[in-house]
């Protein structure tokens, strides 16, 4: 049933199947995805394939995207909120080449958003699919290394160990110091690792109108949250869950309520805080919002990655 397509500019030699994966692999992943949405938060094992990039660079997310994507889709890829960093650019180009899909940087225009470690600031809508790249899908893994044991713990809903971990945070730091990959309980049953998103994003997991799919390539697990799923961040009555962000406004767009990256701007203690979500930041600046250093910078990540940002005074010396 393999149908070959040719690479652009090469009409003679067959290259890869549509979206890289062969059809049998897609069927296997699709079956896993359907079981994953039927049991929200439960990690479904799947036969992860070798992909043309190293494990740990988003192979799980790529395989999930490859199994669901079609020519009618519009794809957005973000890495820590940014559309223009290496991982996001190469994954986006991968699907442009192998699936011929339209791509976008605008959250609201995308039908599929593959993400590493952020949920976009712009609220997602019904019909959108958010695909997470997950490094370690098992929330209990650093507390109990044996898979046979963590399976049993999920079976018996034995999550005391996780509360002990959060309690030790409080005993040591006076508060729950876990700031990313903050464990959540799904529909009152499975404890799930939301991937290393900042806990700032945790409230967006619950009751989201979009479908959220999680792929862990190296660990060979897929899990999911259907729309309108109840997701609760673990906490204690006397230490309720709280989100956290840098206590600043975005220096480019002035947003008060977005998640911020800290960028070092010189070697004399200069720094700025910018939106981690580049599309959100650019959208606000296009609307005329301006932050402390607003003016002429193009995008938060372009600024962060450029030397002129780090050594503005030495531009002539280079």
């Amino acid at each position, binding site marked *: 049933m393999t*149908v070959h397509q040719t690479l652009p500019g090469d009409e003679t030699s067959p290259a890869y199947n549509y979206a890289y994966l062969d059809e049998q692999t897609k*069927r296997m992943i699709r079956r896993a995805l*359907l079981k994953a*949405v*039927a*049991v929200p938060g*439960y990690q479904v*094992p799947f036969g992860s394939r070798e992909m043309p990039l190293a494990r740990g660079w988003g192979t799980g997310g790529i395989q999930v995207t490859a199994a*669901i994507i079609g020519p009618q889709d519009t794809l957005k890829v973000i890495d820590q909120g940014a559309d223009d960093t290496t991982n996001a650019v190469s994954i986006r180009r991968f699907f442009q080449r192998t699936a011929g899909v339209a791509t976008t940087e605008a959250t609201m225009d995308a039908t599929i958003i593959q993400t590493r470690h952020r949920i976009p600031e712009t609220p997602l809508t019904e019909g959108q699919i958010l695909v997470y790249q997950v490094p370690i899908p098992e929330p209990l893994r650093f507390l109990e290394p044996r898979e046979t044991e963590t399976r049993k713990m999920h079976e018996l809903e034995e999550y005391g160990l996780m509360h002990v971990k959060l309690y030790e945070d409080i005993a040591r730091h006076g508060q729950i110091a876990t700031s990313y990959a903050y464990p959540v309980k799904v529909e009152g049953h499975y404890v799930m690792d939301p991937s290393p998103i900042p806990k700032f994003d945790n409230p967006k997991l619950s009751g989201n109108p979009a479908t959220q799919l999680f792929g862990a390539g190296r660990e060979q697990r897929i899990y999911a949250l259907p729309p*309108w799923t109840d997701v609760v961040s673990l906490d204690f009555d006397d230490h309720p869950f709280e989100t956290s962000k840098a206590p600043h406004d975005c220096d480019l767009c002035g947003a008060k309520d977005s998640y911020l990256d800290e960028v070092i701007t010189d070697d004399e203690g200069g720094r700025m805080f910018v939106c981690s979500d580049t599309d959100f930041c650019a959208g606000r600046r296009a609307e005329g919002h301006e932050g402390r250093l607003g003016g002429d910078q193009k995008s938060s990540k372009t600024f962060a990655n450029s030397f002129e940002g780090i050594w503005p005074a030495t531009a002539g010396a280079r």
Partner: protein
Amino acid sequence: MATDTLIGAGFTDPVFQSQAAFRALLVALSEPGTPQAVSGGVAPPEGLHAATATTLLTLADYETPIWLPTALRDGPAGAWLRFHCGAALVEEPRRAAFAVIDGAAPAPRLTDFDPGSDQFPDRSTTIIVQCAAFHGGGTVTLAGPGIATRRDIAPAGLRPGFWAEVAGNNAAYPLGVDLLLAHADGVIGLPRSTQIGKAA
């Protein structure tokens, strides 16, 4: 050659037809109770609805044993699935990864199929329940993941006590079978996570 021994065509464009059908199935099971069209233009064999045939072409292969009622298994539907999916057709419901049942037939019961195991609840049977229509039956109210508040459906042609079986299936969560109601080219997903209530 007699035409009744011929096996009908499957997908004409397997990559894109199965992709489109899968997306409809993903929406069906992640938003339970919403009718989704999965027709890929497939002419189903006798005894299968188009949605049933398309779903199995999309998801079944040599890794997934299929259970069919005996009449279908020994007829053109069985031959068609063996040929196009390469799937084994099993006699015991409990061994099946996919099953097709007639919603009106008294047997087999949902509990005859594999509910998965405590540690691997994903290893359960997905049952395609072929029914007479998606409306006109008794109204049931659905709630749970994938449903914002409540959703009413009223599929027709289901055996008496069917909804009690579905509620029992939900009570065993996270174990349980996942259901796809199929009629013509439409499916309605009823995963094990969906709670069943009678309409007020």
